[in-house]
């Protein structure tokens, strides 16, 4: 399995990559034409020029970009992400609150799409060329080509508007106090966003599983197993599953980046108060600290997915096991 040396290597590369990503994000944000001071105090403020200079001095806005980056990085390392301008609260507490709401959504959709996609993929792969298989393939191709927010809008208009089965959005009923919101309310409001995100992410895993199953079914050891008189059910459990389950799990882990993007769009459609809507609000409102904080967290999120995927590759594939370069 993992040697001590390769573990150190992974962690080292991870840190370097995070630093690079933070520099990239910082550079992008710093070069924005939006003046952080104006977005903080508002455009119609009557603050005198002296007072403005004082705030700029206090924030270190007159320093050079590398100095500001170092300053920011130092604060991040001590756990201080700064204050959000839009929400007037510490960034870290917003991220914690919003991310926990989004994590539930993403985890549910991730697992549902994984399990359903895997099962459908196996069935379709076993019946390659049949009606079911062709329908699945067509469906998945269309799904992969359709924008997340459009699927969200359709689901919203069918299930929430026409049928009225589900609420239009938000994480809790309107006008209810936060303390009164029950678990049932939350689940009720979570269903449509989850369904949307599941549908959007199911295409890739289904097509992948289907392809793999077909390949494996053509291999010699399956022919041999069939010759021994193994039933299809046993064949699937003993040979097919073993060969494709880990690669499929790996694929699911490496799709965190798309999951995050899909989540952001789905949240916007259903106005679900998660990290996705916070990202849009931060970028539209010129809220630099929050935007940077979210970028870092999302990079960490994607990174952990890729890391798990790469380690799993090493576990699954004996050819990769020897090498130490996982990331």
């Amino acid at each position: 399995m993992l040697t001590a040396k390769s573990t150190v290597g992974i962690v080292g590369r991870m840190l370097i990559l995070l630093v690079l990503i933070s520099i990239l994000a910082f550079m992008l944000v710093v070069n924005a034409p939006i003046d952080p001071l104006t977005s903080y105090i508002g455009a119609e403020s009557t603050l005198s020029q002296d007072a403005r200079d004082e705030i700029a001095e206090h924030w270190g806005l007159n320093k050079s970009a590398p100095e500001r980056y170092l300053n920011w990085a130092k604060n991040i390392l001590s756990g201080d992400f700064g204050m959000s301008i839009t929400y007037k609260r510490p960034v870290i507490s917003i991220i914690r609150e919003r991310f926990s709401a989004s994590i539930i959504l993403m985890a549910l959709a991730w697992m549902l799409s994984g399990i359903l996609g895997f099962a459908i993929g196996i069935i379709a792969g076993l019946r390659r060329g049949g009606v079911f298989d062709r329908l699945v393939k067509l469906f998945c191709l269309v799904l992969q080509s359709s924008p997340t927010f459009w699927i969200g809008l359709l689901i919203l208009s069918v299930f929430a508007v026409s049928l009225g089965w589900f609420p239009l959005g938000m994480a809790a009923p309107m006008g209810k106090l936060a303390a009164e919101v029950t678990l049932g309310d939350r689940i009720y409001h979570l269903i449509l966003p989850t369904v949307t995100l599941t549908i959007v992410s199911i295409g890739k895993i289904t097509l992948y599983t289907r392809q793999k199953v077909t390949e494996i079914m053509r291999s010699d050891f399956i022919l041999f197993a069939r010759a021994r008189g193994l039933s299809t059910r046993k064949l699937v459990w003993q040979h097919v599953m073993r060969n494709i389950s880990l690669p499929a799990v790996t694929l699911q882990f490496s799709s965190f980046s798309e999951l995050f993007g899909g989540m952001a769009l789905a949240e916007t459609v259903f106005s679900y108060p998660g990290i996705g809507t916070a990202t849009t609000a931060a970028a539209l409102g010129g809220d630099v600290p929050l935007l940077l904080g979210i970028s870092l967290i999302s990079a960490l999120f994607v990174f952990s997915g890729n890391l798990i995927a790469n380690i799993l590759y090493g576990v699954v594939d004996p050819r990769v096991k020897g090498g130490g370069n996982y990331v």
Partner: protein
Amino acid sequence: MSKRALTFTGLNARSRMIIYISVAVVYLACVFVWGTLLDPSAYAVRFADKFIPPSAGHIFGTDFMGRDMFFRCVRGLSNSLVIGLAASLISSVIALVFGISSAVIGGKFDKAVLMCVDCCMGLPHLVLLILISFMLGRGAKGVMLGVAFTHWPELTRLVRAEVLQLRSSQYVRASYKMGKSRMYVAMRHIFPHVIPVYLVGIVLLFPHAIMHESAVTFLGFGLPAETPAIGVILSEAMRHIATGKWWLALFPGLMLIAAVLLFDVIGENLKRLLNPSSAQE
């Protein structure tokens, strides 16, 4: 499917692939040209006809300002195609240069390119697009450049892998032994082999670029609200969907999917045609 179709039309798989490709290209070109030349009065504001459901006069219905949705969609799709085209061209050139050079030069440069790739893929794509659009102060330029400069990493990896395979092949090594320079080998031996991967890569980049463009526009960073673009149309539709105006969302989305799917058809068929091992099936 294939066998029956074969006897029906008397065409082999290769000809059929070419037909698929041409039909898709012709359709997309028509939408593009029609959209660009379209008279803006076709989707002008007419408050008298607002919220007309799909009918013979307005096959996609009209929106809250009485604009005809069909013509807006065509115009919007052609806008998307322009952005997609620019994005795939820029991204693919970056990918080609980086991919070939990193594989040929190797060493530190290779590592640096891979680091860049990891860096760009380390942030969720949408977040990166939002950051770039934020840097450029939103608007059309932000989307254009954002979409153009974020689609190269995957293609770079593909090209690099292809070149790495070629690099150890007999004829490349023979060429080195005969004293040819790296530049010569890259241009004369490696470049022609990468072209198929590259062409398919461009076509398959296209749908991604269009989808991302509309996603960013949908979130409110992209094209301004008065431009007819699929993302703008859909984010307007979101405001009216609660009152049951389903046609505002359904048809523009279908148009977008059709375009994306057609690019996929072109890409997949090209891949099979250009790949010698499957071209003769």
